[in-house]
Every structure is written in structure tokens, then in C-alpha cells.
């Protein structure tokens, strides 16, 4: 960190006195878990240990953590291709997540879905989704179901600046409004849809302005400040719950790594980068969600630095152990591939095999 405190740290310093130490430490720990998890995932993929590509959540940790802590246990989320952080923050089992990404039998989906398809319905995780915008209507559908049940559950739909241009997202926002559905549309505007800048591809000043067009409230906030995210999302969630109405919260953020784990191999991007060289470094220095929070916790005399170091060590050990659990787990047996295509498997030759 630079010696001079960033604006973000100053804001955090003004916010921390309002919180219990326990809550702050939980936030710190969860953000650190996501970061370590993603760094480990990145190491594993570079070592060729994972079957498929991964899309890392590094830099966006405050959004998943601040949002999920603002939710009740029965509230539910829909996630994206960049979903590890969301699943983790909503309570996903770290060992089973790592095993899923490694394609192992002990994974959340028994290794079948991998990084982009993790679910845990018992925790209200409706799933990551490999199709941009694909999970947004699912969350509204969950909210419709909650409304039919007459309960007060709220759904939070994570999506990106890229997805904000998908027709299905616009259609869903309209339906959520006309049918009064308790959904929080949680846009993580990380500036780039793969290589395409938000400034180029998204019309209008702010994504949150789009809520106006559909007749509900929208706001744009700093997605790098975990307390701001927590406070603003909490307000949106409670409002969605009380009024049974949609809300849109746009979090400004930046992904630190490439769109996907293979991007480093695309040599031609070195000559023609899609973002400024110093952008990530500047954000890391001035707006890192974990660094600035840590600084505020220490400077604000909330916890001694040694306690945070201790958490760091515990988290590192936890992630290391998750990776070991994953890598030591078996792959599922091949013939299970045709299980669970259908609910009932008693019909002959259904599903058909590749040869007979």
C-alpha cells in the first residue's frame, strides 16, 4: 500500500466504527478466502491440473462478500461464469468447490459441471452459468416462486456489464417490474466484457440508469468497498423484501486477471492490449478491496495487525487443504456420464449410448 491513504481507505475508516468486530473479521476472512481460492485455482490451472478453463474473481471480492452477508439464509442467488466468489460467499463448501473445479467425484456437482456450473440449492445457490445473462431470469423465476409461496425470500442476480446488453436481461427486468418480483439485479461492472470495454459497448451514462426505464430504483456504488456494498445491498434487499419490487445495484469494480485462464497464452494481446497497462496496478494500489479494508481495520484500531496475519495464515492453510482434498479425490467413473440425463432411467436405451 502507498503510504498516503487512499480515498477508499478514508471512507472505510469512517465506516468501521459502526460495525461489530466479529462482522468485520468475517468480511475480511471471506474476502481473503476468495482471493486465496482464486490464486490456488490459478496455480492449478497453470500447472495443467484442471480439466477446463477458469474465470477468476480476483479484484471483485468485496461484492460477493458484502452482498451475501446482506442476505438471509433463505435468500437465493444466481451467478455467472465468474462465480467462485459468489458460491463461496453464500456458504459453499470450499473443499467441494475445489473438487468440482478439479472435476472430481467429491465436487459440488460430482465433478460433472466444473467451474462454470457449480450449484448448492440447499444454500440458495441457483448456480453459476456459462451463458452470459443465462441465470438472470432464473433468479426472477425463483422470486416469482417465493411470491407464489407467500414468503419473503429475495433473490439476488449477479451479472456483469457484458450481460447488461443481453436481451434476456432486459426482458427479465421488465417482467420483474410488471409482476412486482423481489429481485435485486446486482451488476458487477468490471469494465470489460471479455475484451470489450463497457464505455464502448454500454449505451447511456450508467447501467443503473436502466432501472428508470423499467420503473424501479437503481444506484451505482463503489464495488471495492465491502462496507459500502454491504450497506447499499442491504438497503436494496430489504426494500425488495418489504415492497416486493425489483432493485438494481451497479457495483463499479475491476477484474485483475484476464477474462479466462487461457488469456495469458494469447501472445498477440501483448501488442494490442485491450486495457491500459497500469490500470490493474493502480486499482490494486488505491482500490484493492482487501488491502484497503485491512488498512482501515488496523488504522482504525479495530484489530491488531497480528490478528489479521493470523487469519491470513488460517485461510492459506484452509485453501491448501482444499486443494489437497480435491487433487486426492477420484474422478467419477466414466459410465456415470449418462446418469441424471432424465428423472426416470427405466426406459430402454434412454439415453442412447454412442455405439451399439
Amino acid at each position, binding site marked *: 500500500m502507498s503510504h498516503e491513504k487512499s480515498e477508499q481507505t478514508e471512507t472505510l475508516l469512517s465506516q468501521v466504527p459502526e460495525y461489530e468486530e466479529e462482522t468485520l473479521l468475517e468480511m475480511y476472512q471471506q474476502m481473503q478466502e476468495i482471493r486465496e481460492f482464486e490464486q490456488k485455482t490459478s496455480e492449478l490451472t497453470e500447472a495443467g491440473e484442471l480439466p477446463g478453463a477458469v474465470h477468476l474473481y480476483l479484484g471483485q471480492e468485496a461484492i460477493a462478500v458484502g452482498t451475501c452477508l446482506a442476505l438471509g439464509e433463505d435468500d437465493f442467488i444466481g451467478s455467472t461464469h465468474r462465480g467462485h466468489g459468489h458460491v463461496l460467499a453464500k456458504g459453499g463448501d470450499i473443499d467441494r468447490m475445489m473438487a468440482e473445479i478439479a472435476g472430481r467425484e467429491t465436487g459440488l456437482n460430482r465433478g460433472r459441471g466444473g467451474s462454470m456450473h457449480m450449484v448448492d440449492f440447499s444454500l440458495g445457490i441457483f448456480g453459476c452459468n456459462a451463458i452470459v445473462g443465462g441465470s438472470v431470469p432464473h433468479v426472477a423465476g425463483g422470486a416469482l416462486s417465493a411470491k407464489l409461496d407467500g414468503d419473503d425470500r429475495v433473490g439476488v442476480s449477479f451479472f456483469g456489464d457484458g450481460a447488461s446488453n443481453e436481451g434476456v436481461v432486459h426482458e427479465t427486468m421488465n417482467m420483474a417490474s410488471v409482476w412486482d418480483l423481489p429481485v435485486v439485479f446486482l451488476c458487477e461492472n468490471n469494465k470489460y466484457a471479455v475484451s470489450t470495454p463497457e464505455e464502448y459497448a454500454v449505451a447511456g451514462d450508467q447501467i443503473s440508469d436502466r432501472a428508470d426505464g423499467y420503473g424501479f430504483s437503481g444506484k451505482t456504488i463503489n464495488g471495492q468497498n465491502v462496507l459500502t456494498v454491504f450497506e447499499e445491498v442491504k438497503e436494496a434487499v430489504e426494500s425488495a423484501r418489504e415492497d416486493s419490487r425489483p432493485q438494481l445495484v451497479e457495483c463499479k469494480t475491476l477484474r485483475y486477471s484476464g477474462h479466462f485462464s487461457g488469456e495469458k497464452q494469447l501472445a498477440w494481446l501483448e501488442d494490442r492490449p485491450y486495457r491500459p497497462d497500469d490500470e490493474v496496478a493502480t486499482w490494486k494500489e488505491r482500490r484493492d478491496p482487501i488491502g484497503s479494508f485491512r488498512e482501515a481495520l488496523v488504522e482504525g484500531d479495530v484489530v491488531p495487525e497480528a490478528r489479521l496475519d493470523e487469519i491470513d495464515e488460517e485461510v492459506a492453510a484452509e485453501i491448501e487443504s482444499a486443494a489437497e482434498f480435491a487433487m486426492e479425490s477420484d474422478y*467419477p467413473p466414466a459410465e456415470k456420464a449418462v446418469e441424471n440425463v432424465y428423472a426416470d432411467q427405466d426406459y430402454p436405451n434412454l439415453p442412447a449410448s*454412442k455405439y451399439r
Partner: protein
Amino acid sequence: MADKSYIATIIEGYHEAMAEFDDSFLIGEDIRHALMGTTRDLVEEFGEERVLDSPISEQGFHGLAVGAAMDGKRPIIEYQINTMSYLGMDQLVNNAQKLRHMTDGQVSIPITITVNTAGAPGGSAQQHSDNAYPSLLNYGVKTVVPSTAYDQKGLFLSAVAEDDPVMVFWPSSVLGQRSEVPDEPYRIPLGEADVKREGEDVTVVAIGETVPMALSAAEELSDEADIEVVDPRSLLPLDEETIFESVRKTNRVVVVDSTNRTCGTAGDIAARIANHNFWDLDAPVKRVTRADAPVSYSPPEEQYILPDEETIIRAVRDIVM
């Protein structure tokens, strides 16, 4: 002539097609920075007006391409991922494909749609691993699936010149394939199959990524059976005659394709052979396909679903024994 990789001929084909047709433009996601490696240097050569990075709005940009085609343009669409065609399906099937017919020929929709690399095998899982052509063939969309660098360039340039929508599928596992490829533009007409290996005993009709598997199986089996490998290259139009002729000679056939078994491409080709070559056949027509299941992420399950050399060998042995 030069030794070129499949992906190099994609880049070259794009440059040549856009140079040849002033009314063409390319639209797709992340094409200016060539995230998939296929569109390199196009924006430098043809400018941002003709190389459009689209917002993530597949149905929208597909529909825009249809509208531009109505106004006389020759759009090329690149799908970044194989399953994107599902998102553009209404504009592709219900509009692009039907417009000539429903206007009784008043309009041409000369759109080329390239379907990029991501896919199986490779841990791409359920939503990024489909070869979506059987459903599109069923709806009548012209489709080519080149399996070599040479075929790719020639078929792509023909696809762009066609006055109808044409899908060009680039199977992920053949992108590294290398052939001797002319430096100048050339066209391979749609509807011409290629005999990739001549043989006397068994015909293996193989499509796209299964062509190298069939060729390798043929070598593996060379002591047991002399295998002829026919690559249709173009699925619609389909060169039936080359397939029928091969089966007339060998009297035995296995059809291989990496799409689902039910209503898959192999089923359709097998039915045509059964109809036409019934009296030539000394054994049942066999199919090796994907199992009828979505593609799993974990490698053993993924392999269980996909066609492979081992299963092709088994199928050949079943009909020559």
C-alpha cells in the same frame, strides 16, 4: 503453397473474403482483439466500420446482420462459442433461413456464420460443448464442417460467396491441423465430399473432428481391413454420390459424427445409405456418435460421451468379422 495451420487459414480466409467482397463486414464478440485467435489484424486492415465488436447481444447482432443483408450487404458473423447459435436461433432459423422462401425469392440473405473453437474435448462442460449442426440441418441451413486446413480455406471462401446463410463449423480439436495450402484464394464447392483415404473393405464416413480419429483407426486396423475414409466436408448440401459409390465398392460402412445419436447427422446419412445401397450391403450400417447426454466436465465422463478411435475400431471389427 505453404504448410499452414487450420487457424492460420481461418485468418487468411477472413482477410481474403473481406478484400474480395466490399459489401462484407464482420460482426461478433471480441473480434477486434481476436480473443479466439481467428480475426487477427482484420481491424487494422479493414477498419472499425467493417470489423464490429458487438455488445453481448447475440439475437440482436444476428438480426442486424439479417437486416443489413436485406439491404444488400454480405455479413459474416463469428460466434465466439459453439452454443451461441441457440441465442441467435430465431433470427437464424425463423428469419435468415426462411426469408428467401417466404418472400418468394425477393431477397437474398448471404450471411456466413462461423462457429468458433471452444468445445469438446477439453473440459468445456455442458453449455460450451455442442456441435449444433444437426438441428440447423433439420431446419435447412447450409452447413460445412472442414476437417483440414486446406478444406477450411476453400469451403469458407465458398460459404462467403453463397447467396444464402451458411454455417461454417471449426471443430476445436482440428485447429492445429496442418496442410499444404495455396497462398492465393481458392474455393471448394459446397456439396463435394473428399475421400481422405482410399480402401477396399470398409467405408468410414467421418465428419469434422472425427476425421482424424477415423484415419488413425484405419492405420491401426490396416492388417485387418482396408478402410476408406470419406469426409463429406459439406453436410448440406451433401455429396451423397461419393458416399454411395464408396459403399458400392466396400459393401460395409460405419458413419461417425460427434453429435448426439438421436436425430443426429450420422443417423440421416445412415438412412440414405440404407435406402440407396441396400442391395450392396454385406453388414448393417453402423453409427458411432456421441451418447445422448450433455457433455460432462470431468474427463472420464466426457470421454464416455464422445466418439473416439477405440469405438470406431470396435464398430469396424463388428462388421468385418
